[in-house]
């Protein structure tokens, strides 16, 4: 099997998951594993080409890896002697200070009228709308009936119901939903993920979203908000939505390793879920009940640094 591994080949590792061969120097191969992105050594590992634990992946395209370039990394410039290492962590407020600010800005905490009207009401309405349109088996029924135009209109309505994806992300995804078959693939992937969350179903969701047709001049269909919005609306007690800037900011505040990758990938989403769960516990005393509350907290505190 190992003889088939060439430059750019996607491979599988039993522990580190899927990776991409970015350098081949027989008898070694250097593999980029997104699951190791947050580790101290970085995402690359040098392995024996004949290593038993390395096998060619059954799929040779993965949104998390397609953008990873191949070739040796540029050598780091040596630092001048005596220069202090620069911090890679941006300056952020500790979580305790952010919570203290939140208490002052929103005296009613998560029932504060301003927070509810500005941030929570529309998102809760969108969550309820998801239930009305696609919950209780209605989504599967729609898929079974092949009513693709109906699926398109329902997905467009849900994407329009919040401002979580940017106007450009929303435009791209709603353009893509005009293709009913592609919209149906996204709905199926969403329901599969919600029913059975995990690496495989997340990959399916990212692939379905990424395969939406774009106008050629459009942009940004495969983005974190576009991929993670619908599970969040489906069940905000279990699923968080990822907006990159505020997720990374929150991770820095909490000292959490988000394993962030620009392309939607399971290790990062799994880490987001763990971080959001921890934050929900921190905020429970303030009345936070679900990830709608957690997301609102992350959003309204984004400007503190």
């Amino acid at each position, binding site marked *: 099997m190992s003889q088939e591994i060439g430059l750019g080949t996607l491979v599988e590792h039993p522990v580190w998951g899927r990776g991409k061969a970015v350098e081949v120097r027989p008898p070694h191969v250097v593999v980029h594993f997104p699951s190791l992105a947050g580790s101290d050594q970085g995402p690359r590992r040098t392995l024996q080409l004949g290593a038993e634990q390395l096998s060619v992946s059954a799929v040779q395209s993965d949104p998390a890896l397609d953008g990873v370039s191949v070739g040796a990394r540029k050598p780091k410039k040596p630092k001048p002697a005596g220069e202090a290492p620069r911090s890679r962590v941006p300056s952020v407020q500790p979580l305790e200070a952010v919570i203290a600010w939140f208490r002052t800005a929103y005296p009613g905490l998560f029932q504060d009228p301003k927070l509810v009207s*500005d941030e929570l009401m*529309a998102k809760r309405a969108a969550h309820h709308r998801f239930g009305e349109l696609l919950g209780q088996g209605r989504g599967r029924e729609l898929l079974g009936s092949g009513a693709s135009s109906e699926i398109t209109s329902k997905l467009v309505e849900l994407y*329009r119901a919040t401002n979580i994806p940017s106007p*450009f992300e*929303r*435009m791209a995804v709603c353009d893509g939903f005009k293709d009913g078959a592609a919209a149906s693939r996204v709905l199926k992937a969403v329901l599969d993920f919600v029913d059975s969350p995990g690496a495989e179903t997340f990959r399916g969701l990212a692939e379905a979203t990424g395969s939406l047709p774009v106008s*050629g*001049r*459009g942009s940004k269909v495969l983005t974190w908000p576009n991929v993670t919005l619908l599970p969040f609306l489906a069940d905000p007690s279990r699923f968080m939505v990822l907006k990159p800037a505020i997720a990374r900011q929150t991770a820095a505040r909490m000292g959490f390793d988000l394993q962030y990758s620009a392309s939607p990938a399971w290790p990062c989403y799994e880490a987001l879920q763990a971080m959001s769960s921890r934050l929900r516990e921190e905020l429970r005393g303030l009345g936070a009940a679900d990830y709608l509350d957690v997301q609102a907290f992350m959003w309204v505190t984004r400007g503190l640094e």
Partner: protein
Amino acid sequence: MLGGVHEYRLLILEKHLDSYGHVNNAAYLEILEEARWDLVTRNGYGFDEVHRRKVGPVVLDVHMRFVRELRNRQEVTIRSWLDSYSGKVGKFAQQIVDADGVCCEAQFTIGLFDLTARRLIRPTPDWLRALGLRPEDLAADDRSRGN
């Protein structure tokens, strides 16, 4: 987004360029404004109508992202659409695109300004039509959506 997407074609000309040989950042705003005027003029709310009514659009805020430079004699399309309208304030999105993709993205916060009273007013049905909307589109979207 509300309503449809307006597309306005434009050829980048020498007047748009700066000493670097690409479109100057300030010229982007003029190009985007030109496309917005084309949209509302085609929908019956052009410059003359603004002055007859003494009510017209104003920009309250803009965020721009320059993705790729625009060069001389490049053919581009400006895509414009209304993203939301809540109370007196609307969110308007524009992209400058060419055959290879997006060159610039901009998000505007807009309002309708009473030139006599010198204050913002709620969008009128004619103004909504100028933006390509029907009143029922607004009713369906007249809510704060939060980020």
